[in-house]
């Protein structure tokens, strides 16, 4: 096995090898650190690398595993954390000058759970500033680059979380998703990411963007790895006002059950062609993915996309109002500490009224009902994860997102679980993702469909030309 092969193992492969004693957590961690040192200078995925601490944790994991104190499949696995998860004693910046020197004195709930599962944290990953706006070109840390082509964006806001996995710098990451921030970088970087149901994973210690739309979730290089990570971080937490006291299923139990007779709804009409429409190459790749699902026994059903299309307006209105409310004092006192992209988006919320915000929350109720009504006819929804391939930094248009259909944010508005799995490449060798959305708290269905698709294809095995 080459050092590169070593770094591209899945969590489940690495976990099996650790238990066979093919190698140790220390060797795994050193391999990641060496690769980070070798190539992260051109990707900028890590804001804060905690190498010494990681090696200490790896030695501890090695001792524990040798003594038989096995904490499960994540024990001894190196991971990275989006830099909005509070980490005790470790700088947590949100990729912003506003929090450039903030060192929390507590850990976020998800970080604590991953520590309890025995993971090794390599450090904190770059992102879009405060998880909003575009790539942070005027923030104190460089913008993350896409490993498939460093001239292109990796998608955001969990840009470092997606790019680090695609580059083989770690085995799993945490992201967060308010309008697509897990699924878009997963799609653009050719990896897997799930936005769980709203309330499934505690957001305690995750710096908020928009309380009623924020979701915490995992990203990885395979569907099974995502299921392993979600298993570790899911569950009720009284410290999060939106946390749901709902039993957590075994997410891997039904992975291999197949999708025969599963009804897949495609909300194409009145959505995929909205404004400038979906990029034709992306839609062609998506249509090929539907053919694979069909060949696996699923039934493809076209459904009305209009309520999905309308969801963007409600999502964006709620988001800017809540984001402004959270950052109001800082925007009043030191607005120029924010980068221009995030500042201008957040300030939109200052000029909307309370009645405007309530109108958006009322529309949310209506759209939620209309979208969920489709579950009487279908079991899951399928869409491309992103309407177009990742743009080049040079030609990036900040208004582009308003000119294309947004396939991710209806599921922040409705809180439904949604996964992105690699489903192909453009002619320019840029990844495309397939999004699968299930009923509330049915993440296991997302995993089952995505796994069936993944195992029938080879897309997830491709590596960027680094």
């Amino acid at each position, binding site marked *: 096995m080459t050092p590169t092969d070593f770094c591209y193992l899945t969590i489940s492969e690495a976990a099996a090898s650790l238990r066979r004693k093919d190698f140790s957590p220390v060797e795994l961690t050193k391999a990641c650190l060496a690769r980070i040192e070798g190539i992260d200078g051109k990707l900028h995925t890590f804001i804060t690398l905690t190498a010494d601490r990681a090696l200490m944790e790896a030695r501890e994991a090695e001792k524990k595993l040798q003594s038989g104190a096995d904490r499960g499949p994540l024990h001894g696995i190196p991971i990275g954390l989006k830099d909005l998860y509070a980490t005790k004693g470790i700088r947590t910046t949100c990729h912003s000058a506003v929090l450039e020197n903030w060192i929390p004195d507590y850990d976020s709930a998800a970080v604590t759970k991953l520590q309890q599962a025995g993971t090794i944290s390599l450090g904190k990953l770059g992102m879009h500033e405060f998880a909003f706006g575009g790539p942070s070109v005027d923030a104190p840390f460089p913008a993350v680059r896409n490993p498939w082509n460093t001239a292109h964006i990796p998608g955001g806001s969990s840009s470092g979380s997606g790019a680090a996995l695609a580059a083989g710098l770690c085995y799993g990451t945490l992201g967060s998703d308010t309008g697509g921030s897990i699924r878009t970088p997963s799609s653009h970087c050719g990896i897997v990411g799930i936005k769980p149901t709203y309330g499934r994973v505690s957001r305690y210690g995750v710096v908020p963007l928009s309380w*009623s739309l924020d979701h915490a979730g995992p990203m990885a290089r395979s569907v099974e790895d995502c299921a392993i990570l979600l298993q570790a971080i899911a569950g009720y937490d009284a410290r999060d006002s939106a946390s749901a006291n709902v039993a957590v299923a075994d997410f891997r139990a039904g992975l291999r059950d197949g999708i025969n007779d599963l009804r897949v709804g495609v909300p194409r009409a009145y959505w995929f062609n909205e404004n400038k429409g979906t990029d034709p190459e992306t839609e062609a790749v998506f249509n090929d993915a539907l053919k694979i699902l069909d060949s696996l026994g699923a039934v493809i059903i076209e459904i009305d996309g209009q309520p999905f299309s309308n969801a963007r307006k409600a999502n964006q*209105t709620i988001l800017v109002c809540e984001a402004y409310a959270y950052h109001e004092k800082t925007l009043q006192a030191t607005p120029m500490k924010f980068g221009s992209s995030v500042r201008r988006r957040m300030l*939109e919320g200052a000029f*909307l009224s309370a009645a405007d915000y*309530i109108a958006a929350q009322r529309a949310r109720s209506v759209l939620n009902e209309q979208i969920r009504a489709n579950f009487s006819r279908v079991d899951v929804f399928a869409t491309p994860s992103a309407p177009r391939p990742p743009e080049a930094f040079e030609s990036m248009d900040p208004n582009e997102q308003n000119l294309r259909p947004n396939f991710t944010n209806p599921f922040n508005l409705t809180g439904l679980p949604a996964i992105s799995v690699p489903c192909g490449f453009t002619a320019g060798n840029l990844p495309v993702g397939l999004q699968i959305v299930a009923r509330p708290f049915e993440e296991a269905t997302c995993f089952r469909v995505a796994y069936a698709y993944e195992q029938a294809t080879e897309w997830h095995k491709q590596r960027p030309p680094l």
Partner: protein
Amino acid sequence: MTDEITLDELRGMAVHAGLTLSDDELLKLLPGVNRAREQVAELRRLVTDTAEPAGAFTALKDEMA
């Protein structure tokens, strides 16, 4: 269509909101603010008379835990 707000109006709204922003910054904000207001106008057309706002509050939260 909703009435678009002007730079002068935006300047006044910014002062009321406790924001100190240059005219250059306000000018850059203006298209986004008008787009956001237009979006809300479209949302209002979707809202039915009986629709209540989605919300996270429940009096039973602690008991449900």
